[in-house]
């Protein structure tokens, strides 16, 4: 820290009576305890935070007023012990400890759990992010972060760039994320082949008319090859010995499972049962099947037959090897799924678009994500669920994120300051 030599050392901080400026850790822990008590009291009295209060434009005003108040406090209130305290490291550590404590609870208690014990729910422990203690903790955190940032920002010096990228970046991310959360809109659009859909539903079940419409042309799911595995005949549970070496089924492939040597003669990615065998077809309901031989490596016993994991249209089939062991085909896992749809926007020409996992489509402030499909039908699903999300504060948060990315790189290249033994003084201003 700059100007560290002018500050009281840890020794006389400890001897000083509490609440006599400058405040340090003792005052800090009192403030943190006070905030926790007030937070939990508010939580017990009034339940969680009222939702939607910070909707546009209240959130913008709140963010501006909060930042302005910190600036005024920094410029004109340095003689006030609280404001002086907020800009120094003891306050930083106390607010970090408070946030750590609350997030640790969040990390240990299942969130949004309807079945949580009543006292857990009443204290807001299972809905931490919308609880009063969490909000108060964040306000303290933002205040210390903001005050520390202002100390290095006014007047601006180039050597503080790294510090500012990290601290101002984090301030912008946390404040932008907190304020923007009320403006995030997440809605689901359930598309069916050939149907024009312009309404969407939110999580509470409210239906909205969207400023865009989608018509599903085709839902497409590509699959990985299924695997061969040994299972217990009765329970169909995978046998532990074969977990490590499930092997991928393909035509003309050999492998070992337990004591059995398996040979796949023919693999049909899309097939249907015809009598006792399976034939390749492309119809709705087709599923994978394979013709296999299994030879016991010890006794030389031989088993031969078809295995399939089945589909919604026909049942699975095992090849029995021993009394309680059988060879099975696992259900293939998805490799990719995507929706091809026509997008209609007001005043725009209809456009064919592709929405895929990890490749959302952006239009008029909305981002369209491939959310899910009807998994009862797997690759033959004719329904596709698209999630439409609007987050107007995203540019603010991303500004902060990119500042922090720059700050992180700076941190790594710059290295740590050296501490001179016995004096505690630092040779360079740190990040």
């Amino acid at each position, binding site marked *: 820290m700059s100007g560290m030599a002018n500050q009281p050392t840890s020794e006389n901080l400890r001897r000083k009576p509490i609440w006599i400026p400058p405040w340090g850790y003792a005052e800090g822990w009192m403030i943190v305890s006070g905030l926790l008590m007030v937070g939990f009291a508010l939580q017990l009295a009034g339940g969680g935070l009222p939702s939607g209060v910070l909707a546009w434009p209240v959130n913008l005003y709140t963010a501006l007023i909060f930042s302005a108040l910190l600036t005024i406090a920094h410029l004109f209130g340095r003689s006030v012990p609280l404001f002086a305290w907020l800009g120094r490291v003891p306050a930083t550590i106390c607010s970090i400890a408070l946030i750590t404590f609350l997030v640790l609870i969040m990390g240990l208690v299942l969130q949004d759990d309807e079945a949580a014990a009543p006292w857990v729910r009443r204290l807001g422990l299972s809905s931490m992010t919308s609880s009063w203690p969490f909000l108060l903790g964040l306000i303290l955190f933002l205040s210390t972060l903001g005050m520390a940032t202002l100390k290095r920002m006014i007047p601006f010096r180039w050597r503080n760039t790294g510090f500012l990228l990290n601290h101002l970046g984090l301030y912008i991310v946390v404040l932008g994320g907190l304020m923007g959360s009320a403006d995030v809109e997440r809605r689901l659009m359930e598309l069916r082949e050939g149907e024009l859909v312009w309404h969407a539903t939110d999580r509470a079940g409210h239906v909205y008319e969207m400023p865009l419409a989608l018509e599903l042309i085709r839902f497409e799911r590509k699959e990985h090859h299924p695997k061969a595995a040994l299972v217990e005949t009765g329970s169909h549970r995978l046998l532990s010995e074969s977990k490590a070496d*499930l092997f991928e089924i393909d035509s003309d492939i050999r492998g070992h499972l337990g004591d059995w040597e398996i040979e796949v003669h023919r693999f049909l990615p899309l097939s249907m049962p015809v009598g006792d065998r399976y034939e390749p077809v492309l119809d709705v309901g087709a599923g994978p099947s394979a013709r296999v031989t299994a030879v016991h490596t010890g006794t030389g016993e031989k088993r031969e037959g078809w295995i399939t994991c089945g589909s919604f249209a026909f049942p699975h089939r095992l090849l029995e090897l021993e009394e309680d062991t059988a060879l099975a085909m696992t259900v293939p896992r998805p490799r990719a799924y995507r929706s091809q749809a026509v997008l209609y926007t007001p005043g725009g020409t209809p456009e064919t678009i592709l929405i895929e996992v990890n490749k959302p489509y952006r239009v008029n402030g909305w981002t369209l994500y491939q959310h899910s499909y009807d998994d009862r039908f797997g690759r033959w699903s004719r329904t596709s669920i698209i999630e439409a999300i609007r987050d107007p504060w995203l540019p603010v948060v991303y500004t902060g994120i990119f500042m922090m990315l720059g700050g992180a790189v700076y941190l790594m290249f710059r290295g740590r300051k050296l501490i001179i033994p*016995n004096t505690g003084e630092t040779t360079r201003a740190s990040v």
Partner: protein
Amino acid sequence: MLPFDPANVTIAAMLCWLVSLTLFAAARGNRTVKATGHVLYVAGILILAGLLTALWQFMGRAPLRTLGETRLWYGMFLPLIGYAVYARWGYRWMLYYAALMATVFLGVNLRHPEYYDRDLVPALQSPWFVPHVVVYLFAYAVLAASAIVAVRGLIRRARTTELNVADNLVQIGFGFLTLGLLFGALWGKEAWGHYWTWDPKETWAFLTWIVYLAYMHHRIQRPQQVRVSLWILSLAFVILLVCWFGVNYLPSAADSVHTYGRS
């Protein structure tokens, strides 16, 4: 199935380190013996790098999906960082600890080889997958080295100056931790629609990040309180381990989207 057995390759790397460390201990100033030790130490790292490259080639996807695969990366990075710390600051003991810790993690892999199928679910098929995980594993390995300094310092009553190594490691590790966290946020936006959802893995990643943040600030303000710093540093690594492995077993993570694929 793989055309080679990863276990044998892993054992080869571990043997390289074992022989190398034995040579270091027995060298007594003999330069040829020492040089052989160095060659073998680096060879162990290169063998693992070769294994990862071969797995990547064979599976057609980055070997970063299962816990077992992440342990392989860790087993490569940790001795690499140990060697770098030795080269930069001359701490010979770091070579021993880094190799020992890598051996423990690779040993777990010999007992639980939870790889290596080609499947990669759609959510992981993204350009962010490799940078997000590799940056994190590198950070974990650097921070493990700092934890080694911390535990050693607690046992041997370290003095202020000895923490300079830990500080440097934390500075680098924290930088990578931040990159991993932010890459994850940017990827999360593309894959799930939001940059931060307080998924249990995110919650613990945040905890890890903020405890190292506390360590750095505490070092700036109370450089003389060495033991407190060492305790924070040790605690931070415990939280890091919970984030990496423990989350899979926590009841609070029942619905996590981040649990490693277990076939």
